[in-house]
């Protein structure tokens, strides 16, 4: 909630003015019964037609004034709500971008997108309705009570008794309902899950002849949902009858008290009419409130979810006081052990090796052996738990985040190219790159034909690079990394969609560059010419050396090489 307050702060003026004008509008509305009372007590009682016409004109004037106040209030409410949600959305986007990889993994893309879209919209609706309606209701309710007091103190007491009882009733119903509705949502998630899984897995389910069992599971979840809906519906069904009942009982009491007060000469008939209208106004307002309260309840839980993400801390730029980068060693791992948050066993265990500037290093290993994890520690996407990773002699924890990532370019397994042009994507590597720089990078990445196919560097790229093939995306994403002219280049299995000939050309071209290169692969052929090959198995180094050395003294490497037809060479 504190974030909401912060975002709302920029719209403090609107957030105050809106309810204020609502208050004015409510006053206009609250005066109406008094005018009607006078029409009855004076106009009708004394048959004064002029007085009546006068009173009616006053009513219309108050209505018009109320309209103006209401419109002003709506404008400020809309401005505050829209502005607040825009502010919140910007803040959330900034926060998401500032999160560490660990937090990104933890939250997950689908949830982030839900937060950015439906949750924020929910909050916007909530703020808007709160300013417009939720504040109006108490104003009207208490205003009506206050007006009742001005008419008659004893009658006012009826209101004083009614309001707490009504509030208690509504709050109780809401308190009981909210968890019930949460249950409904949970059950609905179960039904959603069944539907999604059965559609996506339709072939497997049929292959295993599981249609009947799946239907049984769904029927169970569906029945659960129905039961939860009925339970919640039963409670919320009580709201309207209860308010109606309480308000009308109060009316009876009021007429009775009114009668007594008339008989002692403290009131007139018209006053009782006015009091009756005050009570009706309260009823109308409460019914409206009950309908909108649900929006607010949803907004609050959305805001809570957003708040949880905003609570996360940004990824720090530095963990340790900065160190100078110097020395001949480009990258070194010193007894590094790394465990993913929430992961049981360490993903990397006791990794130690160092790489000289300009060397090419192959990282080889099976699925889940820790190859990607290892290279992700170099630009400090994840922080080592035990041991140290050094880049150019400095502890990565002691190099500012942006500096480090400017020196290290990673081409990830999944190549992501964004909407725009080829040029706009390549410039991600370096905004200051010249046309020659771009074309040179494209050449090395073997992507000249991609650029040509798209009609030059300004060729359009669709969202998520959908108008490119997997191999084209990979080559462009390699080019993007090269534009950066990195000191350390990491290809994380990023040539897997390339055919062998292109892969070979790429590796040959990379050799000519003046940078330290890491090539992560499952294929020995991609790494056999590296100056050094690190063989990983289940997070540990199983072999370290050149192709020839490893063939001689690393059983695992020999086995992998043989299984890939290495002997036929």
């Amino acid at each position, binding site marked *: 909630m504190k974030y909401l307050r912060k975002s709302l702060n920029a719209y403090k003026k609107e957030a105050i003015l809106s309810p204020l004008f609502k208050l004015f509008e409510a006053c206009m509305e609250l005066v109406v019964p008094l005018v009607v009372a006078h029409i009855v007590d004076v106009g009708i009682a004394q048959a004064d037609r002029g007085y009546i016409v006068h009173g009616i004109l006053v009513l219309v004037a108050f209505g018009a004034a109320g309209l103006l106040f209401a419109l002003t209030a*709506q404008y400020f409410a809309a401005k505050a709500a829209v*502005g607040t949600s825009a502010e919140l959305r*910007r803040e959330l986007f900034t926060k998401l971008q500032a999160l560490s990889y660990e937090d990104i993994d933890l939250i997950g893309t689908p949830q982030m997108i839900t937060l950015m879209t439906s949750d924020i919209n929910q909050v916007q609706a909530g703020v808007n309705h709160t300013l417009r309606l939720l504040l109006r209701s108490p104003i009207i309710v208490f205003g009506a009570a206050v007006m009742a007091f001005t008419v008659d103190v004893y009658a006012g007491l009826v209101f004083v008794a009614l309001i707490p009882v009504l509030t208690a009733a509504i709050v109780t119903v809401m308190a009981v309902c909210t968890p019930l509705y949460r249950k409904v949502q949970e059950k609905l998630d179960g039904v959603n*899950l069944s539907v999604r899984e059965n559609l996506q897995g339709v072939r497997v389910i049929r292959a295993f002849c599981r249609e*009947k069992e799946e*239907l049984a599971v769904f029927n169970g979840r569906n029945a659960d949902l129905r039961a939860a809906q009925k339970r919640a519906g039963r409670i919320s069904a009580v709201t309207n009858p209860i308010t*109606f009942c309480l308000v009308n009982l109060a009316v009876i009491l009021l*007429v009775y008290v009114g009668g007594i007060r008339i008989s002692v000469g403290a009131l007139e008939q018209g006053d009782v009419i006015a009091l009756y209208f005050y009570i009706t106004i309260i009823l109308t307002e409460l019914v409206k409130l009950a309908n909108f309260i649900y929006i607010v309840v949803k907004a609050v839980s959305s805001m809570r979810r957003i708040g949880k993400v905003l609570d996360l801390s940004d990824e720090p730029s530095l963990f340790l006081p900065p160190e100078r980068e110097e020395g001949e060693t480009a990258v070194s791992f010193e007894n590094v052990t790394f465990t993913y948050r929430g992961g049981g066993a360490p993903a990397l265990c006791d990794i130690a090796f160092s790489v000289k500037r300009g060397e090419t290093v192959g990282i080889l290993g099976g699925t889940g052996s820790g190859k990607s994890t290892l290279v992700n520690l170099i630009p400090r996407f994840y922080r080592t738990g035990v041991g140290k990773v050094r880049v150019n002699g400095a502890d990565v924890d002691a190099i500012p985040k942006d500096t480090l990532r400017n020196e290290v370019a990673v081409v990830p397994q999944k190549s992501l190219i964004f909407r725009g042009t080829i040029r706009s994507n390549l410039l991600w590597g370096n905004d200051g790159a010249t046309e020659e720089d771009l074309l040179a990078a494209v050449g090395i990445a073997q992507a000249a034909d991609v650029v040509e196919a798209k009609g030059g560097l300004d060729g359009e790229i669709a969202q998520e690079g959908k108008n490119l093939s997997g191999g084209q995306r990979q080559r462009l994403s390699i080019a993007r990394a090269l534009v950066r002219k990195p000191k350390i280049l990491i290809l994380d299995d990023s040539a897997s969609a390339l055919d*062998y000939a292109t892969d070979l050309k790429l590796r040959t071209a990379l050799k000519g560059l003046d940078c330290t290169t890491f090539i992560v692969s499952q294929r020995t052929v991609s790494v056999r010419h590296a100056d050094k090959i690190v063989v990983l198995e289940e997070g540990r180094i199983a072999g370290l050396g050149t192709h020839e050395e490893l063939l001689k003294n690393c059983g695992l490497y020999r086995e992998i090489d043989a299984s890939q037809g290495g002997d036929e060479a």
Partner: protein
Amino acid sequence: MKRSTLAKILKRLKPYTPWLLLTVVAAILSVAGQILAPYFIGKAIDGLVYTVDGAGKRVMDLHALSREFIVIAVCIAATVIGQFVLSLSNNRVAYHVLASVRRDAFAKIGTLPLRYIDDRAYGDVSSVILADAEQFADGLLLGFTQLFTGLAMILGVLAVMFVMRWEVALVVLLVTPLSLLAARFIASRTYKMFKAQADARAEQTAFADEMIAGLKVVKAYTREDENGEIFGELNEKLRKKSLSAIFFSSTTNPVTRFVNSVVYALVALVGAMLAIATVGSAAPFTAGNLTAFLSYSNQYTKPFNEISEVIAEFQNALACAARLFALIEEPEEPSDEGLPSLENVKGNVKAEGISFSYSPEHPLIENMDFTAETGKRIAIVGPTGCGKTTLINLLMRFYDVKGGAIYVDGTDIRTVTRRSLRENFGMVLQETWLQTATVRENLCMGSDCTEQEMINAAIAAHAHGFILRLPKGYDTVLGEDGLSEGQKQLLCIARVMLCRPPMLILDEATSNIDTRTEKSVQDAFAKLMEGRTSFVVAHRLSTVKNADLILVMKAGEIVERGTHAELMQRRGFYYELYSAQFAGDLRGTE
């Protein structure tokens, strides 16, 4: 179309006729109470008259009012009971109908021809079962009662008003449509603004989706600030569009409220004048009458606004219902009840002159023959789109052949139940599919196996190790993306291993596992496959080398067949394909 949808809805509602009748009775009860209460309150107020006694004191007989009070209390009770029963019976009908259409729609997933599901995006089908069903229940059933009570309220109030005093009733009748017109006018004006808002939102969402999906790349290239700027611009644009849309649409309430207050004033005017004119007459228009009328004019205008909303929802709900029924009525796969099951399968598979196409304009497989002897390993190779996956669809009878026939042990597979056919195939597809359930449940899906059998299968599939490393071992619930693609595939392999079917189908199943693991898995498979026929869509050198028979497909035809050695010798299409697809290892050595 609309009419038939309505008829279907009524048919669904039929079992709930008693509940629906109860709903109607409850609605009438509640409306009657709400209409009569103000009338009697008015009468009670009229009863607040006093005489002045000799001492100048007011004398009033409050006991005379007790009859009115009792009647009002009865009205309250009627409304309370009516409203409550209305909600309950209505909820009951709505949720039961919702659950029943959902159940029917879901059951279709299991019985529809695969073509129906393949032809559509998953989201389209699931949104019918989830969102459309919801809107149908909300809009149609809940909306129906609102519509009904609203109408009853309007008619009831009108009737009572005309009975009480037609002159004043006429004023109410004539002026209230104004508020409806005002609301409609605003709605038509704001439509464009909402459209502009939706466009701006779509633009921003597209950008945010893309960048959030690529967050790691954004961070790797330190593009946070640049993205923040672009997002800020889009955000500002959205803010402006939203402001106008939301503000203008929110003027509806104040404007209708104003119109209503004009109605109120007019009623007060006409009523008050009438009261003066009728003083002392046989049927005076009393202050209490005026009170009741003013209260009615409020009650009368409210349902109008609600009804116009309900009608819009109603139309939407009808459209949803139409989609829902279209799905429920979609023709199912022809039933195979009564057909014999395929039993004691040896695994001799034979295709004779089969042809198939997904659409008549694009013939795919034509007049294809092959024989897979019991226990042999058949590798299927060919360029993308050559019909490899289609062949698997036909073997499993996800689709039926258009011409020719496929025989298992000499039996045409269309003459036995699909279930018995599929039970004899073990299948691992290109895309892995695991349920949100425990590892154990996912592994044992197709069989009643013992703990030890399950663990043995996991060990054989090289999955035991990483399963134990999961937080709760075999009892870990698999999330949507907890495991790597390779690990998921190992689980799918273990799942098939447990079934020990006589025939196996592997659709590029091993392409995501590193070669070394694949080799171990293949060793395990080799053991499993002794005496079992297997079809493998091959992408790996080792697979084709070990195959007993390679079927080389091109554009839906088998262009070559034989063993690896034979085909290499022939130097035909396979040789070309092999050089491009598999032999990179050779060329990579320079």
